[in-house]
C-alpha cells in the first residue's frame, strides 16, 4: 500500500505516544500501589472490591461491638462471682448460727454481719460499669435496679411517668408495689394499682456481633436476682434479709407459753435456718446458672472474634488481589515498556531522517 509522508510520520509518532501512555499508566499503578485506578478499569472487579470493602468495614464494626459487649459481660461475670462469694459466706454464717450453743447475743452479731453482706449484695446488684450504667439495669441502665425501704433492699418499679417506687416479689412471681407492714416487713401496697407499675430492671439488649450472629448483653436484675425455684418466686436479696431477720428474734425454749412478743421458739428458728440453707443453696445455684450463661456468651464472643479475624484476613487478601498492584510484575512490565519506548524513539529519529531529497 502506498503511504504518504504525513501518514508515516503520524504512525511512528502515534506508536511512540501510545508506548508513553502505556508506560505512564504502569508508572501510575506503581506509584499508587493500585492496579485499578478507577472503577471503569474493570467494572466487575470494582463492584467486587466495593462488596469486600463493605464486608471488611462491617467486620471492623462487629469487632468493636464484640469488645463493647465483652467488656460488660466480664464486669457482670465478676459481679456474679462476688455475689456467689457473698451468698456462700451467708450460708456459712447461717450454718454457724444454727447451733444450740449460740446465744441471742452471738446470733445478733451474726445477723449484723449477714446484714452487712446483704448490703454488699445490694452494691453488687446496683453495680455500675465505667460509663455509670447499671450492669443489671436491663434497658433502664440509667436507674438502680434495687432501692431500699426501711432495712430492706427491694427491686425498683416505675410507672409511666418514670416515678420510682420499691416493689415486692410475691410468691406467684408478680412484682407489685411494696409497703411495710406493722412488723416492718415488705408487703403489697394495695392502695396502688399494680398494673400501673413495671419493673425497672428488665429487658436485655441483643448486640450484633456478626452478619447473622447476635449475643445477649448483660442480664437484667429481674432475671438474675429474682427467679422461681422450689414452687415459688424468690428474691436473693430478700432471702439474705430473711436469714438476718430470723436470727434477730430472741429465742425461747420450745413449749414456752405464752410466747413473749417478738420471740420465737428454738424449733421455729431451727426450721427457719434449715429452710434458709435450702434457699441459699438454690440462690447460689441461680447465680451460678447465670454466671455459666455469661461465660458461654463470653466463649461465643471469643469464637466470633476468631472468625472475624480469619475472614477479615481472607477478605483483605481477596481485595488486594483485585485492586492492589503486583509490584514485581508491574516493575518488570514497566521495564519492558520503557525498552519498547526507547526502541520506538530510536526508530522514529532514524526513519524520519530519511529522504530522497538528501540525494538530489
Amino acid at each position, binding site marked *: 500500500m502506498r503511504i504518504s509522508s504525513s501518514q508515516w510520520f503520524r504512525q511512528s509518532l502515534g506508536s511512540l505516544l501510545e508506548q508513553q501512555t502505556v508506560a505512564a499508566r504502569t508508572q501510575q499503578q506503581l506509584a499508587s500501589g493500585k492496579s485499578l485506578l478507577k472503577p*471503569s478499569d474493570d467494572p466487575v472487579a470494582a463492584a467486587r472490591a466495593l*462488596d469486600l470493602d463493605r464486608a471488611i468495614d462491617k467486620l471492623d464494626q462487629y469487632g*468493636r461491638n464484640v469488645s463493647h459487649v465483652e467488656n460488660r459481660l466480664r464486669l457482670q461475670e465478676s459481679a456474679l462471682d462476688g455475689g456467689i462469694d457473698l451468698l456462700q459466706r451467708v450460708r456459712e454464717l447461717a450454718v454457724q448460727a444454727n447451733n444450740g450453743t449460740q446465744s441471742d447475743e452471738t446470733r445478733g452479731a451474726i445477723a449484723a454481719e449477714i446484714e452487712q453482706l446483704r448490703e454488699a449484695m445490694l452494691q453488687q446488684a446496683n453495680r455500675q460499669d465505667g460509663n455509670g450504667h447499671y450492669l443489671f439495669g436491663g434497658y*433502664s441502665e440509667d436507674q438502680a435496679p434495687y432501692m431500699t425501704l426501711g432495712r430492706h433492699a427491694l427491686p425498683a418499679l416505675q410507672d409511666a411517668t418514670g416515678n420510682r417506687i420499691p416493689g415486692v416479689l410475691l410468691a406467684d412471681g408478680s412484682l407489685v408495689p411494696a409497703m411495710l407492714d406493722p412488723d416492718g416487713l415488705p408487703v403489697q401496697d394495695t392502695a396502688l394499682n399494680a398494673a400501673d407499675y413495671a419493673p425497672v430492671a428488665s429487658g436485655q*439488649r441483643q*448486640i450484633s456481633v456478626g452478619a447473622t450472629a447476635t449475643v445477649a448483653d448483660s442480664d437484667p436484675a429481674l432475671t438474675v436476682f429474682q427467679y422461681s425455684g422450689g414452687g415459688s418466686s424468690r428474691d436473693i436479696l430478700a432471702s439474705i434479709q430473711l436469714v438476718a431477720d430470723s436470727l434477730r428474734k430472741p429465742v425461747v425454749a420450745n413449749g414456752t407459753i405464752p410466747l413473749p412478743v417478738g420471740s420465737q421458739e428454738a424449733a421455729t428458728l431451727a426450721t427457719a435456718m434449715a429452710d434458709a440453707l435450702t434457699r441459699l443453696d438454690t440462690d447460689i445455684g441461680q447465680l451460678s446458672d447465670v454466671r455459666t450463661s455469661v461465660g458461654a456468651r463470653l466463649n461465643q464472643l471469643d469464637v466470633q472474634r476468631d472468625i472475624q479475624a480469619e475472614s477479615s484476613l481472607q477478605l483483605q487478601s481477596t481485595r488486594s488481589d483485585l485492586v492492589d498492584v503486583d509490584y514485581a510484575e508491574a516493575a518488570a512490565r514497566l521495564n519492558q515498556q520503557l525498552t519498547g519506548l526507547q526502541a520506538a524513539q530510536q526508530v522514529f529519529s532514524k526513519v524520519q531522517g530519511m529522504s530522497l531529497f538528501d540525494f538530489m
Partner: protein
Amino acid sequence: MSDMMGSALSALVSYQRALATTSHNIANANTDGYSRQRVELGTRVANQSGAGVIGSGVQVTAIRRSYDQFATEQMRSNTSGLAREQTFATMATQVESVVSDQTTGVNAALSRFFNAVQDVATDPSSLSARRVMLSEGEALSSRFRDIDSQLGSIDQDVNARLRASVTEINGYAQRIAELNQAIASATGGMGGAMPNDLMDARDQALLGLNQLVKVTTVEQGDGSLNVFIGSGQSLVLSGNAQQLQLGNNNFDPTRAEITLSDGGVITDFIEGGSLGGLLAFRQEVLTPMRNQVGLMAYAVASEMNAIQADGRDLSGNAGLPFFSVPPVAVQASSFNGGTGSVTASVASLAGLTGDNYRLVADGAGGFSLYSQPGDVAVNPADVGLTITLGGSANAGDSFLIRPTADVAAGLRVSLSAPGQIAAAAGTGAFGVGDNSNALRMAAIEDKAVLFGGKVSIADGVQNLVSELATSVRSAEIGAQAQRTLLSQSQARKESVSGVNLDEEAANLMKYQQAYQAAAQVASTANDIFQTMINAFGR
C-alpha cells in the same frame, strides 16, 4: 521544424505545469485534508501530412486530485463516532470520580453512617455514640448534597459545551455554504474543471463538522453539497446555511435544548460527534445518575424516618423524623394554557424507579402519565406515586414529575439533639438502654426496600457504581474501536490522497529531466534553424 519547436515548447509549458503541481504537492505535504494532485498529460492534435500523421507535442489534459470518495466518507463517519465515544467517556469519567470515589463517594458515607448506628445499637444510652451518629448523619446528607451539586456543575458544564458546540457548528455550516458557492461558480467558470483546493477545504470543513455532529450529505449537479443533520433536517442547502440555536427546555429552564432557526427542537434526533456524545451522556448517564443518587438518599431518609417514628427517644418520647426530605419536584410546561397544578408525593419506596414522568392532562380533570425516557404509559400507583391534578388544566397541558431528582440536593438531618434518636422500641416498658429500634435502623442498609422490594440500599449504591463503571468502560471500548476504524480509513484515504515526499522527489527529477530534454530539443531546433539561415544567408 516549426513542428519540432512547437513540440518542444508544448513540452516546456506542460512540464512547467507538472513541476508547479509537484511543488504544490510538496508545499502542502503537511496541510490537513490536502489531496495530492496529478497532472495528466496527453498528446496534442496531430498534423496531417501526405506521409501520415505527425505528432505535435504534449499538453496538460487535466490536473486531478487523487481522491477516494468512499474512504473520505468512511473517515467522516469514524471521526464522528470517535468524537461521540470520547466525549461520552470523558464526561462519564467525571461523574464516576464524583459518585464512586473510595473516600468521598456515596458508599463510604453510607458505610460510616450505619457503623455509627451500630455503635448506638451497642450502647444506646451513650450520648457520645448518639452524637457521632447524628454527625455521621449530617456527613451523609452533606455527601449527598455535595455529590448532587457536583453533578449539577457537570450539568452546567454540559450546557456550556453545548453552547460552544452550537457556535462551532454554525461556523462550519456557514463556511460550507460559502465554499459551496465558490465551488459552484468555479466549476461553471472553468468549464467543468474541478477547483481541487476548494473541494479539499470543503471536505476538511465537513470533517470538522462531523467531529461535532454526525451529518449526511447529498451532492448537487453544480458541485455543491447539501448537508443534513439529525433525522434529515437541512443544515446547508447549496449556498444557504441554517443556524442551530440553544433554547430552554419547556419544563426545565436550566436544561438546554438544540433548536433549528425555523423553531424545531432537534435535541433527541442528534447523533454522533461530540455534540451527540454530550447529549447521550446527559440523557443516559447524568440525569439518571442524579435521579438514582436521589433515590438512594430518599430510601435512607424514608426508612430511617419510618423507624424513628416507631420508636422512643432517650426521654421516652415518640421519635421525630431523622432526615427532612424535600417534596417531589413538579415542573409545568411553559406551553401550558390552563391553570392546572400538580402535586405529587411518594406512596411507596419500592415502586420508585428513578425515572421521571410526564403528565398530560386530558382537559376533563383526568390525566395520563408517561415515563421519561421511554414514553411508556404508566399507572401512578405502580411507580410508587400519588398524584393530584388541581385547578383546570387544558387538554394537552403537561407537567414533568421528577420524584427523586431534588432529594439529594435537599436532604438534611432534622434532629437537633443526640437524645432525639429513637433507639428504644415504641411499645413495652421503656428504658434508655433499649436498643431494639436502633437494631432495626442498623438493618436498614441490608433490607431489600428498593425496586419492588428486591434490592437493598447497600446493593443499590453498589449497582450505581458498577453501572456507571460499565457505561464508562463500554464508551472507552467504543472509542478504542472507533480509533482503530478511524486510523484504518485514514490510512486508506492517505494511501490515495496523501503526499509522499519521496515520490514527489522522484517526480521532480522526472519532470526536470523531461523539461531539460525539451529545452535541448528547442535548442537543437534553433541550431537547425540557424544552420538553415546560415545556409541561405550567404
